[in-house]
């Protein structure tokens, strides 16, 4: 086992408006307060060695963010969790930690799927079901995607893997969406909104999973609790 600890953390409503960079800065400062024996980068202004999963869109909550911290010595993951949690600001909390085997591949290399839970106010279950049926009958769904290199037409339908109803409330429905995340293919939150007819700014979205999709099953970035691939 190596000196890297991989951990899962949650991002609550207190910190939902932090950008990815804000988050990194916050995590780094908490590390310094916690005085954990971190490995520092070489060079003139040494930084703790850390890596994170894919940036969470601003405004989205999460139950499943991941990070890797490299320590200067073998460090106990449970101890790390206890100490670090004391120094994190409200809204950030480590919920699981484990030591990574030497040479384990990076989070960014592995993660390719996201799971979101969306609370849609003023919507009914039937409305959603028929929208999902409609989408499944389509071959393509084109949107204009803005990137650094300009705007391009893109078919985003293949990036939405599954939508399922989690529950109905008097004020709306809760759905779960499984979609592509990462460099190989990625569904943006606005695009998810365009597919399912909601405005992401007006709903509460929680990322409930970052997964590794391999052929016909999903795995987690930590531990060995692979999920079953659900046929859709």
């Amino acid at each position, binding site marked *: 086992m190596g000196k890297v600890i991989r951990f899962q953390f949650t991002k609550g409503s*207190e*910190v939902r*408006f*932090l*950008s990815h*960079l*804000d988050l990194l*800065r*916050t995590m*780094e*400062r*908490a*590390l*310094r*307060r916690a*005085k954990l024996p971190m490995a*520092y980068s070489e*060079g*003139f*202004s*040494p*930084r*703790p060695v850390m890596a994170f999963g894919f940036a969470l869109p*601003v*405004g989205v909550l999460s139950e499943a963010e991941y990070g890797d911290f490299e320590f200067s010595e073998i460090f106990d993951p449970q101890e790390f969790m206890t100490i670090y949690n004391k*120094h994190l*600001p*409200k*809204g950030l909390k480590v919920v699981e930690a484990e030591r990574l085997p030497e040479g384990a591949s990076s989070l960014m290399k592995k993660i390719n799927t996201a799971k979101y839970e969306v609370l849609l106010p003023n919507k009914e279950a039937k409305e959603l079901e028929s929208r999902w049926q409609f989408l499944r009958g389509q071959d393509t769904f084109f949107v204009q995607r803005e990137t650094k290199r300009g705007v391009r037409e893109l078919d985003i339908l293949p990036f939405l893997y599954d939508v399922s109803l989690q529950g109905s409330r008097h004020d709306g429905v809760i759905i779960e969406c499984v979609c592509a995340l990462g460099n190989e293919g990625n569904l943006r939150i606005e695009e998810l909104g365009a597919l399912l007819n909601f405005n*992401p*700014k*007006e709903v509460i979205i929680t990322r409930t999973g970052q997964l590794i999709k391999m052929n016909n099953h999903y795995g987690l970035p930590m531990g060995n609790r692979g999920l079953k691939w659900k046929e859709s």
Partner: protein
Amino acid sequence: MDKTIASLLPYVQKPGRYTNQELNAEHKDWKNTLIKVALAFPDIYDVGMGHLGYKILYSLINARKDSLAERVYLPWIDLLDLMEENQIPLTSLESGAKLTEFDLLGFTLQYELSYSNILKTLDLAGIPRYSTDRRETDPLVMAGGPCAFNAEPLADFFDFVVLGEGEEVLGEILDVVSSIKRQGGSREELLSKIAALDGIYVPRLYEPIYDENGDFSGLKSTGTNAPAQINKRVIKDLNKSHFPEEFIVPFVEVVHDRTMVEVMRGCTRGCRFCQAGMIYRPIRERKPEILEEQVSKLVKSTGYEEISLSSLSSGDYSHIKPLLENLISEYQGCGITVSLPSLRVDSFSMELAKEIQKARKTGLTFAPEAGTQRLRDVINKNVTESDLKEVVQGAFKAGWYSIKLYFMIGLPTETQDDLDGIIKLAHEVIAWGREFGTGRRLPQVSISVASFVPKPHTPFQWMGQESLDSLREKQKYLRDKLRHPGIRFSYPRVEESFLEAVFSRGDRRLGKVLEKAVDLGCRFDSWSDCLRFDLWEKAFEECGIDPHYYANRTRNFSESLPWSHLSAGLERDFLLDEWKKAIEASVTEDCRWDKCSNCGVCPNLGVKNEIVGDNRHG
């Protein structure tokens, strides 16, 4: 009106500015705390959060059992517009309380171009702009900070103004509020008790007099507790004054987002254009062991990656070198850097720079302020040609490749030679860089040229600012002559400096212009892109007030000055002598090292320079 700030946040830039769960933010029990103070910074969060004085007051108030302080910033334009549209009132960050629910609402006056934002804050909070229009339930609106030394343009809007350093007097104010709240008493009674404290100015107790030409000729007091002169408050011993052990750590990026300690207060170098150097006298240094302890507590409570040793001229702090060395050896290992906010132009500063920037050879900044030795003597900026040469060449030899130099145009007695001096120096720096540079990168020089603004309580307080056209012409001349791939030239808009000049030496008649400008849509004037000079011109015109009268007119030495009742302890004769010496290009020594130059501050206020060591450097 069912929209809330929270529901608007997904629609604005950088919404993290408006959240309130930052580490170390104080959420005191609203119901069970007697005195509630809102500390308002008339700019956005990103700017206000970097301000050290504000952190000190926040922590000082919250340290009292009977009081709480909460932060208020003006929302950026996107949210501001949405709030106005939806009639959502401005609230404090911590409790989200309406500003009308506080006992005191304090504003810090850091720069003149923030004045429109003060009225904007009051408007958005639903508090009447004019102190005389406020209701029994409205908070007392107070102000402090450097611009309080000429509070006249804002006189109608504040219930009281605190002159000088706030740490002690704020405690006295809270004691008064506490006793009135416990015994019961009206807002008016409260104000009159506060007015009786030293260093407090209640503008409403005075009335301006104008002579037949419309010139200001003095103030007459209209009530009790209205002394003819208000002296600033000053902390005698900085070692005993309150300093926070925790800073709020913002989530979003803000200016000066780092651990800061104040190594000393005051500066006696005596630069004649510099208001801070005049109004913060005398020098009071903090003991190095206290500073080290403060740093250690802050590093622990914030986790910041940078420590800044702040003051007006930290290179002058008598223990600066050992302090730097200790901090560097203590914190370098855990990835924490140490920095100084500014560097003097001398070899000692280069030693310090090497110490702190072993790593980052990014850039060095110096402020010669003027292009020739003669003009530097006029402004008493103690920088010589040979110092500059030695320091810049040394920097290139040591591996730096980028040098930034600050200058001013429009200084008294400036001639063509002085402009050419700036140009010559810029080209020389490039040539030195070519000759002595050791890095692979080409030498870069950034020249930043501000337009001079005469400030009250300085030897240049009588002087008219140069006209807008002439300043523009000078900028153009410099721009043409500084076209060179290695030179970057930047300058603020002359309109900004002009408005600053109007308000810094204005009188009470400007209050209505400010009000008009805000009604026409002015706000965030210090943000170049937001400044609507056309609206300001319209406001002056509609009020029948000539801004040039304030900005460009050279005052008579016998004239009454609107700020003369607000005293920083300086003698008028000292300022006048300094003005005369300026014209003769004769310099005045720093009273820290040399003889007292009789500015008046020490005898008038019963204070003296407090230096912790005697090692002179530089």
